[in-house]
């Protein structure tokens, strides 16, 4: 029987009007990886906040190796041996790697009173990173490294600080570490975690069920602030986990494949010989009315940039783009918009929505030029009506159309982004990772929406990192690698290629 590392009993957290955690009981044993899954809003982040001292629970208690554990903050919990690794990385980009590794713990390297022994810091950092299999220069500036490397640096920081504080085996809380990582990078991360299991315990939060099943020793499922199940990878499958998370059986038709069209209209978008330096070369594709064409590829394959070029964000790209048979000569954002080409960017929070502005202002933004504000004077009546119409049509859950976007969940925010472009009567939608960071239930709603749009004759270019989504949703897919298209294939309902076969062309 393994020893208990951390115990949390009856953890309840109340916010005004909302109970974020409801009597949560969780155990973490020594040298194990505990998976934590749940939809957005289930309480995973809040639980991690309580465990790492960033928030204090309203009720409940925690024991760290038998001793009462009530951290006063992130730093305090680190001193006790509980380290949080954040999804967006709590590293200062312009500092050097070793400076980040020892951030706020520099006092261990003080010499001559106020000075720091930087050489020792760098050397120690180098050794610790090497232990994790990371062969990087600790004196380099942190932002030079890729997201996946920085994630590992942050884990190294957790281990290193623990060692220096004299804590034998820390508890490391990994908060969605794989969200921005591609396939190979995830494997590297998992290797590191497995290696470290001998000297640390982990809590692993992720949206990606296959990953949680691959890495965890035990899994907790959370829903609506409660722990609804505790299971192991041996006893559970993606389907059962999904059902526990969402509360209903995962519809076999998650991507609404049964609604996939078999015949399409006329060609609505044609791209020929699109090139942009070494980012992508000689890309050609065509989309018909009602067709969903997917583009897949790992980070750096050029697929994101191809999407941007079609949207008019990269007018310098060479090649030809035809919309409804007509060549588009100047390809700026406005020109493509006027031709009926719409684009939803992958970074929803910085490029897709204005977080501080209300729903209606976000929704009407693309229409101000041509529709609601053509004369310079705003037609508030028409704006109000159309906004209300689309809120209903897309099922946007919001208290009112004046609510600020940051109060909406990710899924509803994305619906507003879609509505923004649907309001312009776009005939071609270029969607880049449209369901990124959205919970399973909201994803299904969006898939339903996209099928509906395809039925109406809208052509969709789907650029996505989610392989299952790429295959499940598209009628045809293109795979890119290093800027070139390496594979084209049909993905009809009932004859979908396996993820394994598609991945082969990506890496």
């Amino acid at each position, binding site marked *: 029987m393994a020893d208990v590392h951390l115990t949390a009993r009856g953890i309840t957290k109340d916010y005004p009007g909302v109970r974020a955690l409801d009597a949560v009981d969780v155990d973490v044993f020594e040298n194990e990886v505990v998976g934590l899954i749940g939809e957005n809003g289930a309480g995973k982040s809040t639980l991690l906040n309580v465990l790492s001292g960033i928030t204090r629970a309203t009720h409940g208690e925690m024991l760290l190796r038998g001793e009462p554990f009530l951290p006063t903050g992130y730093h305090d919990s680190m001193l006790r041996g509980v380290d949080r690794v954040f999804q967006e990385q709590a590293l200062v980009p312009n500092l050097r790697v070793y400076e980040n590794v020892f951030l706020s713990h520099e006092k261990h390297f003080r010499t001559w009173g106020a000075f720091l022994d930087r050489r020792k810091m760098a050397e120690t950092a180098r050794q610790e990173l090497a232990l994790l299999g990371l062969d990087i220069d600790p004196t380099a500036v942190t932002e030079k490294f890729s997201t996946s490397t920085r994630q590992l640096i942050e884990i190294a920081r957790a281990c290193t600080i623990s060692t220096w504080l004299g804590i034998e085996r820390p508890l490391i809380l990994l908060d969605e570490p794989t969200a921005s990582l591609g396939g190979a990078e995830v494997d590297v991360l998992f290797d590191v975690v497995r290696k470290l299991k001998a000297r640390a315990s982990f809590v692993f939060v992720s949206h990606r069920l296959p990953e949680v099943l691959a890495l965890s020793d035990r899994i907790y499922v959370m829903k609506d602030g409660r722990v609804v199940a505790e299971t192991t990878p041996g006893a559970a499958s993606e389907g059962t986990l999904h059902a526990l998370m969402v509360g209903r059986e995962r519809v076999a038709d998650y991507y609404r494949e049964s609604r996939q069209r078999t015949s399409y209209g006329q060609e609505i978008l044609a791209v020929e010989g699109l090139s942009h330096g070494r980012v992508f070369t000689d890309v050609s594709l065509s989309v018909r009315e009602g067709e969903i064409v997917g583009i897949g590829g790992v980070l750096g394959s050029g697929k994101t940039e191809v999407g941007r070029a079609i949207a008019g*964000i990269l007018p310098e790209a060479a090649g030809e783009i035809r919309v409804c048979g007509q060549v588009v000569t100047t390809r700026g*954002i*406005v020109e493509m*918009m006027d031709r009926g080409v719409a*684009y939803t*960017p992958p970074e929803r929070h*910085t*490029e*897709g*929505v*204005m*977080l*501080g*502005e209300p729903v209606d*202002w976000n929704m009407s*933004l*693309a229409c*101000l*030029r041509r529709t609601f*504000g053509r004369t*310079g*004077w*705003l037609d*508030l009546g028409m704006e109000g009506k159309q906004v209300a119409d689309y809120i209903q049509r897309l099922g946007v859950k919001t208290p009112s159309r004046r609510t600020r976007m940051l109060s909406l969940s990710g899924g509803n925010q994305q619906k507003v982004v879609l509505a*923004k472009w649907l309001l312009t009567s776009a005939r071609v939608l270029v969607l880049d990772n449209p369901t990124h960071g959205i919970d399973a239930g909201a994803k299904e709603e969006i898939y339903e929406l996209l099928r509906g749009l395809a039925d109406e004759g809208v052509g969709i270019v789907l650029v996505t990192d989610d392989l299952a989504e790429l295959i499940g949703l598209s009628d045809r897919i293109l795979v890119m690698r290093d800027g070139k298209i390496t594979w084209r294939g049909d993905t009809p309902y009932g004859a979908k290629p396996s993820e394994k076969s598609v991945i082969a062309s990506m890496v």
Partner: protein
Amino acid sequence: MRGIRLQGPVLALLSLVLLIIVFSAMNHRFFSVDNLFNILRGTSVLLVAASGATFIIMMGSIDLSVGALVGGAGIVAGVLLRDYGFGAWAIPAVLVLGLIVGAFSGFLFAYVKLPSFLVTLGTLSIVVGLSDVLVGGIPVQIHREQLYVRLLGGDIHGFPVISLWAILVVVICYIVAFRTRFGRYMFALGGGERVAALAGLPVRRYKLYAFLVAGALAAFAGALLAARLSSGTPGMGDSYLLDSIAAVVMGGTALSGGVGGPHRTVLGALIIGILSNGLNLVGVDPFWQQVVKGFVVILAVAMSIDRKQVQIIK
């Protein structure tokens, strides 16, 4: 200060009411029709200048040259009246001046992409310098009987004309902010410039427009000030820099942009106006008034700014 931060205009309104109560208690002359008109008269110039600043701040930028332009416009008006016999035509002439200065700052900001903070700091210097060159540092007298002064200053049955102008400006700015595309674009630029650009907004053009508007309004404020003081004095616009930004922020338009509006600025300007008037009435030394005003501004901004959302202010 959790829990103390109040939503939107509530804090500003409360402060206003509090100030009125306190000053009325300290001096019975405060709450008289005469004094109310005084307050209006004293706040008008600030209101006009701050309305222009509101658009810039809504966009998420800042204009440090407001004060300089107010003073500069007043001086130019005086010179045009005294040396060139412009008469009432000095008013549109000064507005054109404001447009030119706005175009200068706006172009450098929008098209050359220099930060607004730095550009307007430079413009401030240039305008102040040119004003000094123009009159050699010596105030220009404006005769009270002139049409110019009667149009902008003066009273109608005791009600200050200058305030009518200010009210007109505020109403127009409010309509522009909430009922025109220009106004909505200002909010969009402040709320998410990248998002707006991706939605087809001509970002650079509208940034320039914002500075044109702010320039014209600052110049108009200067014209009003010159009429009120019957002179164009170097440095007379200086206090309007801090006051206009304070009025905008205290009213509830966030420095990070995207929220607020000209109606909020009215509250902020009134707070400053009432504060000045009240402190005068109570007999506080003008220099000490500066100190009090500084503390009030800090307190008001601290309580009204949403620090969780502020990313740019270090």
